[in-house]
């Protein structure tokens, strides 16, 4: 395309108008990314040392060290476990709830509001509610161990023995169960919202046609609803995985900044938790961990996109 002089002049103007936005992006997005890469590639990097004039050797030392670090491996494992369980489960639940919501008229608004509540509530506040429900104190002077919390009360009412969910002496399995429940519940509203929107935009004639064709409700769900919703489902799964790998606030909400029950702090630490921990003392290691996290998310997203290209229709 040929450019006239006037267009060139206009281009110059366009850049001028874009300048404020570009400047902000450069300072708060582009530079931090570049700086993270730089820090991760400098051996034993720390900001304090750099300020006092220390020169660092260039190399992949931080990456090697981080991957050998036991607490990093634990964080990676926790994160993987949480993501792999919560994303499929919450997506399926959200799909079922969305379909149910879409098929009722009576009380639909009320149910919608109930399901969307977690979306508008602060994560830490929800975490504290969970903490209370699953027995925060775990007994104490004059209190029978594991007697507090609505969940244990219910278990006892049915004749079971109370379980230490999050308190001192609780098992990691119990901790994980609470955490997974919390994350799934917290992830539902957004997914329901997206899927319900998708359902409402599906042409009703497909359902009428399927009815005339004699399809059962189950077949309509699997052969019509799910394929027609597949773009939405793919979107929800991809964002779910990204969110899952960045899991942090849920752990803080339930277990506090110790990232675990009092007798075993750091037990439930996640990747982002690891990065936060190291950001104070060892920025080089934190940067390397952040880049590894980025690489994992990128890889998972690419796999997701590849799969959805094969499976998502039209």
């Amino acid at each position, binding site marked *: 395309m040929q450019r006239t002089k006037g267009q060139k002049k206009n281009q110059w103007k366009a850049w001028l108008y874009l300048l404020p936005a570009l400047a902000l992006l450069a300072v708060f997005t582009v530079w931090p990314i570049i700086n993270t890469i730089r820090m991760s590639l400098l051996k034993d990097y720390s900001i304090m040392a750099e300020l006092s004039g220390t020169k660092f050797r260039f190399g992949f030392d931080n990456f090697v060290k981080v991957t050998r670090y036991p607490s990093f491996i634990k964080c990676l494992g926790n994160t993987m476990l949480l993501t792999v369980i919560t994303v499929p489960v919450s997506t399926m639940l959200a799909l079922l709830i969305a379909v149910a919501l879409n098929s009722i008229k009576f009380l639909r608004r009320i149910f919608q509001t109930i399901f969307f509540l977690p979306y508008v509530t602060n994560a830490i506040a929800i975490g504290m509610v969970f903490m209370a429900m699953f027995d925060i104190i775990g007994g104490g002077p004059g209190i029978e161990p594991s007697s507090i919390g609505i969940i244990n009360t219910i278990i006892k009412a049915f004749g079971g023995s109370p379980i230490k969910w999050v308190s001192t002496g609780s098992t990691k399995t119990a901790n994980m169960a609470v955490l997974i429940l919390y994350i799934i519940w917290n992830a539902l509203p957004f997914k329901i919202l997206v899927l319900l929107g998708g359902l409402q935009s599906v042409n009703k004639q497909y359902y009428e046609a399927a*009815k005339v064709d004699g399809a059962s409700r189950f077949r309509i769900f699997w052969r019509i609803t799910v394929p027609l919703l597949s773009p939405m489902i793919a979107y929800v799964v991809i964002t779910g995985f990204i969110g899952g790998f960045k899991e942090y606030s849920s752990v803080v909400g339930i277990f506090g900044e110790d990232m675990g029950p009092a007798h075993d702090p750091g037990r439930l630490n996640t990747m982002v938790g690891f990065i936060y921990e190291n950001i104070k003392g060892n920025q080089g290691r934190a940067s390397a961990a952040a880049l590894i996290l980025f690489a994992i998310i990128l890889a998972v997203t690419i796999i997701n996109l590849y799969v959805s290209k094969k499976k998502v*229709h039209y």
Partner: protein
Amino acid sequence: MKVVLQHLTKIFPSRNKKDKSNEVVAVNDFNLEIPDGKLIGLLGPSGCGKSTTLFMISGLQAPTSGKIFFGDDDVTKLAPENRGIGLVFQNYALYPHMTVQQNILFPLQNLKGENRLSKEEMLKRANEVARLVQIDEYMNRKPSELSGGQQQRVAIARALVKMPRVLLLDEPLSNLDARLRLQTREEIRRIQRDTQITTIFVTHDQEEAMSISDFIVVMKLGVVMQTGKPQWVYDDPANLFVAKFLGAPPINMFRGKVQDGVLYIGEEAVLDAAGVEDQEVYVGIRPEGFILSREGKLTCKVSGVDVMGRDISVVSTSENSINPVVRSIISAEEMGNITGDAVKFDLKEHKVFLFNRETEQRVYFGGQTAAHEAMIKAMEEEGQAYTAALTGNFPREADDKAKERPAAPKGKFAKIKGIFSKKEKASKEKEASSATEENGEVK
């Protein structure tokens, strides 16, 4: 399969269920017997209840009252999947994520129990149907990779694959361009003849309905106006609405009167109407009902001549015409006889229809009475009942007596007419605009 509709009525309640005044009576006391293996065209302007009728036959909508029979089976309460129908939607509703083959196979895969076919049989049937509608080359394509006409044929194949007792088509051609529409229309006719499945076809395009139907049913505001073979209905309209709705270019309407057995348009005595009571009438004259004649009795002012090759269309005006222009089609050889501003016509008696101004019902005169009786007799021989609904028999009048639903008495017509004058005006405007479109094509 014979299809019988008895007193079929559909009332859509208003949003506020107690508020009866906002109810919409979409179909009002619809009676029809469709002979086995015929193609029926349900014809009417938008909102006349033809699609609702079709959806009630399909089972997707439940009638408020009345019964539906397939053969001797009462299917009124049956779910759509148990009725043995094939339905083709206006926009086809092909499953976008399935290939053509999967779309056609879908109804077969839903069969259960003893009706279930083996995989090979399913494929065989799907291939047979695909060949019938000539889409077997595209079996592995997605609907989005097909043209409108091809999608349309896939939809028909999907409807036919379970060998339905009745095939229902909801405005199947309205999403196609003009050329494809003609082609697909022939295709539907061919498929129907090949399969011999009783077919009900909904359309608002009178030309479409006339060209492919064995019988047409003309509807207006939920009421059947007339039924019969297309040519019969065209040649012998029962009332003003049917006369105006059928025919392209549309019928020419004049204000006239019958006095002492003579039909007058304005001051001119145009035809002998012996035996007809004195009354004010609408005079409908088909465009082909004019004969150019120097001693002609009807005088019009010529405003133009459209040449169409074999024929010419004389566009003229008359102060007694209700339409903006009078359009007459005469042989091109007579073009030389049009001289000057005024043109005089003689009228062909069987192309002139009189309608009472108040009831809008046909007033027969001269040889028409005998012709009309002959037609009714011919219909009876074909096992058909002659329908000539009152134009005034509109649904809303009977609202408060919804359950009994008596026929509206003639005398109340004037009152009802007031209620509907707005609607009629709107539809008249629509007709006028579609008429101008047609004119454009002719030129």
